[in-house]
């Protein structure tokens, strides 16, 4: 750069002329542009240099007015540069011992990393200089001792420490420790590498295993890393991980100093990877399980792309609380960035076990952790178990005992190869190996279950979770097998009522099967069928219908009309027609499906019975009671053996039948049917299930009608008790039970109790915000009126009954029998109070009806 050319090179101008120049410029700037030149001619005619100087500056001012000015000078130093510069320390030039500094590589909260050239031997190294000086002699000794050990650490996965020393910082005067380490060319931090290289799940896990091996190597030599995080794990250009800063945390200071710095808010990024015991001031020294924890966090992040806890904008106390007690969202619930699909739940377990709050519950070593990852990759049973999940599963099993039992059966059926899917598989003549694999796979799954851990039924869900994980891992490798597996799991989940999970499995199954096996392949078609059934369960009728029609077409083409699978799909389309209120189509299709089932499987087959029950309810819906009775009675009879009394189809049939019997006055038959249903539901759904409670209520009502008042009373009491226990007490259904109970008491002449019963009945209706003028309430007001009449409080009774009549008459629907009963009660009141004129009128009215 030539100094002469600078228009503002001040030394040439000298202090006096400089001042003049400033004044001239200021004055010139106040003038209009056009007058400036003439003014300059006048003001500095004898000093050409001065004139050029001022002219140049004025030209820049003019140029600014014309174009979008480059405003960086006005804005000041670039903000992000300020921050970057400040977060690094200045070792721009010069030497640190034997190392010639070439520039900065990066910086963290506690250190700056420089690129440097070592002189002996000649090589490029990375020099890490800590930002904090060594304060005591003790610390100095430890630093020397630890550095020596670090130098002995040799592993391809660990960046080697060549030497260490201290550097006197000119500015602060502190002795700053530094380490000269292996320089890794074109290195990228682990998380960036995984993100940009778009590694597959298997590649990522294999990378993770290499990291574990390196950490394990350190542990075997008694060195903990203590600060494992993606930024400390570099990936070289060949894709191999290199861990940096191994053991440095220990060498440069105790963990309490570390925490102190943390409290100053400097290394929040590191906190994500710190185990609860590292954050706990009172805890014992961290052991190798803090590295296990950090590896768990890293695995979490690799799988999901996010860190387990959100620590942004939190105070230190909140951060510690979050890490110590926060809810860990399962990786699979976060979605998976790696393969574009979900993380298999088995990986959840591994991560969760590594990240257990109490270190006693973590993997006891890194090699145990990596062993489990290897097992996962090899499809072997894991050491990790789903943590703290048993509670939810138990709850689920309680609610769905029936379905769970069904699923157990299904799993066993799978093993013997008699379900739809595996039959389809055989028909497809897939290589024997696939069938073999499926069976041995499932055997493995079952064998891996710990029989003491949960209940017998719980294992089914755990198995499915596990199997889903495996299936996921196989997607890319063996799509045909994976498709079959997904289809099987989907079918099982569907039967368990896990519809959302089923949907995911079945969508995978259908996609994989139709691409790898073909759209008309039995596996593709059966997953399509199940997919439609799942969508129906989820209330997505339209899409369910589209897929069901598609599946039906496919099966008709591939299997022919007279085929059980084709008929099953036909029945599904009938079910969908029914839910669209298209009774006619539903009926036609059910009949056709039923005929095929009867032909091919016999009249006692589950499918045939199910179709008949469906046809029975349709017959009832279009008003043909006798037809419905025939169909339902026959179905109940045939199903006794083949389905068993607890099958949901049988329960539906009996309930429908009972309602018909009640309506036709065959009370005893209804009582018998409802008693059976109630017993079955008690067994499979438990005493507090909504459906069980409903049946109990209906049974008590039937008993009441059969004049078995004592029995009914007992059932109502039982019902109220159970509603209380089930936590569904504040509900209008409770109001109904209370009202019915009061009516029973009144009938038994237990008037005082009945009075109390009605009071609580109306209170419950009010509490549950039941509409005041609903006819159901009127029915109990009528009951109360009868009681009042018995108590001789005729005036109140009369008023209540007149009100009830109005309500019943206004209500939609057929209430003629209720109106009649109310009028009868009113007549009685009129007679007893000798209101003969009103009584006469009413009698006439009743006579006409």
């Amino acid at each position, binding site marked *: 750069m030539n100094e002469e050319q600078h228009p503002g090179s001040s030394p040439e101008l000298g202090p006096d002329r400089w001042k003049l120049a400033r004044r001239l410029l200021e004055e010139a700037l106040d003038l209009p542009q056009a007058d400036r030149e003439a003014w300059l001619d006048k003001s500095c005619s004898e000093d050409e240099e001065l004139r050029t100087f001022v002219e140049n500056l004025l030209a820049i001012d003019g140029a600014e007015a014309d174009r979008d000015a480059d405003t960086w000078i*006005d804005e*000041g130093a670039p903000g992000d540069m300020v921050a970057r*510069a400040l977060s690094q320390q200045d070792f721009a030039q010069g030497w640190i011992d034997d190392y010639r500094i*070439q520039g900065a590589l*990066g910086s963290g909260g506690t250190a700056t990393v420089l690129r440097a050239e070592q002189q002996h031997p000649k090589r490029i190294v990375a020099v890490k200089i800590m930002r904090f000086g060594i304060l005591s002699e003790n610390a100095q000794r430890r630093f020397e001792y630890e550095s020596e050990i670090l130098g002995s650490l040799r592993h391809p996965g660990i960046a080697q420490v060549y030497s260490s020393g201290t550097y006197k910082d000119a500015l602060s005067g502190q002795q700053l420790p530094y380490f000269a380490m292996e320089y890794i060319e074109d290195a990228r931090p682990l998380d960036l590498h995984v993100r940009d290289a778009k590694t597959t799940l298997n590649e990522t896990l294999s990378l993770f295993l290499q990291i574990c091996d390196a950490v394990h190597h350190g542990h075997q030599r008694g060195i903990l890393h203590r600060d494992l995080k993606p930024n400390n794990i570099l990936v070289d250009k060949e894709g191999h991980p290199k861990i940096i800063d191994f053991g440095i945390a220990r060498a440069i200071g105790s963990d309490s100093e570390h925490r102190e710095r943390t409290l100053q808010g400097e290394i929040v*990024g590191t906190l994500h990877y710190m185990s609860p015991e590292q954050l706990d001031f009172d805890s014992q020294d961290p052991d190798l399980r803090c590295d296990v924890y950090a590896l768990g966090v890293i695995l979490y992040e690799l799988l999901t792309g996010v860190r387990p806890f959100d620590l942004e904008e939190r105070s230190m106390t909140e951060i510690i609380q979050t890490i110590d007690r926060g809810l860990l969202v399962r990786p699979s619930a976060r979605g998976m960035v790696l393969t574009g699909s979900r993380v298999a739940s088995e990986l959840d377990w591994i991560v969760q076990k590594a990240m257990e709050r109490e270190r006693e519950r973590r993997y006891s070593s890194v090699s145990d952790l990596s062993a489990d990852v290897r097992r996962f990759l090899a499809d072997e049973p894991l050491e990790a178990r789903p943590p703290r999940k048993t509670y939810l599963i138990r709850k689920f099993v309680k609610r769905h005992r029936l379905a769970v039992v069904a699923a157990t059966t299904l799993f066993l059926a799978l093993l013997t190869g008699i379900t739809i899917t595996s039959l389809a598989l055989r028909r497809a003549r897939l290589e024997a190996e696939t069938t073999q694999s499926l069976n041995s796979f499932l055997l493995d799954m079952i064998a891996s279950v710990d029989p003491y851990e949960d209940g017998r039924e719980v294992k089914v869900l755990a198995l499915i979770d596990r199997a889903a994980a495996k299936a996921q891992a196989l997607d890319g490798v063996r799509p045909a097998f994976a498709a079959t597996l997904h289809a099987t799991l989907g079918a099982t989940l569907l039967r368990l009522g896990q519809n959302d999970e089923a949907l995911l499995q079945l969508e995978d199954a259908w996609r994989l099967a139709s691409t790898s096996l073909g759209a008309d392949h039995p596996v593709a078609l059966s997953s399509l069928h199940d997919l439609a059934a799942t969508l129906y369960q989820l209330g997505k009728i339209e899409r369910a219908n589209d897929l069901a029609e598609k599946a039906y077409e496919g099966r008709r083409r591939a299997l022919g009309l007279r085929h059980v699978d084709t008929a099953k799909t036909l029945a599904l389309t009938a079910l969908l027609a029914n839910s669209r209120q298209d009774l006619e189509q539903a009926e036609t299709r059910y009949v056709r499906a039923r005929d095929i089932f009867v032909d091919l499987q016999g009249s006692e087959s589950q499918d045939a019975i199910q179709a008949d029950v469906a046809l029975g309810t349709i017959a009832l819906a279009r008003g043909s009671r006798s037809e419905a009775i025939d169909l339902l009675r026959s179905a109940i009879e045939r199903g006794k053996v083949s389905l068993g009394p607890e099958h949901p189809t049988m329960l539906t049939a009996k309930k429908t039948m009972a309602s018909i019997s009640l309506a036709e006055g065959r009370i005893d038959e209804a009582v018998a049917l409802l008693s059976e249903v109630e017993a079955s539901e008690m067994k499979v759904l438990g005493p507090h299930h909504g459906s069980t409670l409903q049946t109990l209520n209906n049974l008590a009502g039937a008993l009441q009608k059969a004049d078995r008042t004592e029995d009914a009373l007992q059932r109502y009491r039982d019902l109220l008790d159970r509603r209380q226990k089930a936590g569904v007490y504040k509900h209008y259904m409770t109001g109904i039970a209370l009202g019915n109970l009061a009516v029973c008491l009144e009938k038994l002449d237990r008037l005082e109790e009945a009075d109390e019963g009605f009071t609580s009945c109306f209170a419950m209706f009010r509490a549950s915000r039941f509409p005041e003028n609903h006819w159901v309430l009127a029915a109990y007001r009528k009951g109360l009126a009868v009681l009042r009449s018995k108590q001789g409080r005729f005036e109140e009774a009369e008023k209540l009954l007149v009100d009830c009549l109005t309500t019943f008459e206004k209500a939609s629907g057929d209430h003629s029998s209720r109106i009649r009963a109310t009028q009868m009660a009113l007549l009685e009141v009129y007679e007893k109070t000798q209101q003969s004129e009103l009584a006469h009128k009413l009698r006439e009215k009743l006579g006409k009806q």
Partner: protein
Amino acid sequence: MPKPDPSQTTKLLQQLSRGDKEAGSDLLRIIYEELHRIAQRLMRQQGAAHTLQATALIHEAWIKLVHVENPEWEGREHFLRLAAKAMRCVLVDHARATSTLRRGEGRKALPLEEEDAISNDEAMRVLSVNEGIESLAEVDPDLAQIVELRFFGGLQNNEIAEVMQISLRSVERGWQFARLWLKARFSTFEGGDEKP
């Protein structure tokens, strides 16, 4: 690591006000360290930190180090002067390191953390303003001070007037001149220097 001690900072500022030059260098070190701390925290909180302003950093350091209820307190101008100087040192060293590294190694020497990269243009601008200030200091120390406070300290004209105890009008006129002068200088630099 010693934590900032407000009473110590205040004492040093008082000493400086009484003309104790030693206090200045101690203060500079404290401010320098505090700026590091704040910048690191902000970097971590904000990630890319594009909204970070020099002035925000300095004001935060002031609050951290002095903890005074009354921000009009007399030591403040010394503090701001020193802070701007500290910022200038930091930035210039950083820019130097960056440009040296770039020239020496081409594009190979990628920093470990991507976001640590600053552009060559930014580095060159910082260095050019720095050289400008150095030149100005010889002929017009007041103007050099205005540029330092404004460009590196991120201060507004009225704050500069307060710190330098001159009129706002003087600051405005001074800055008007200085920015044109710097631009003239920089356009020559840009024309003459090879672009990456």
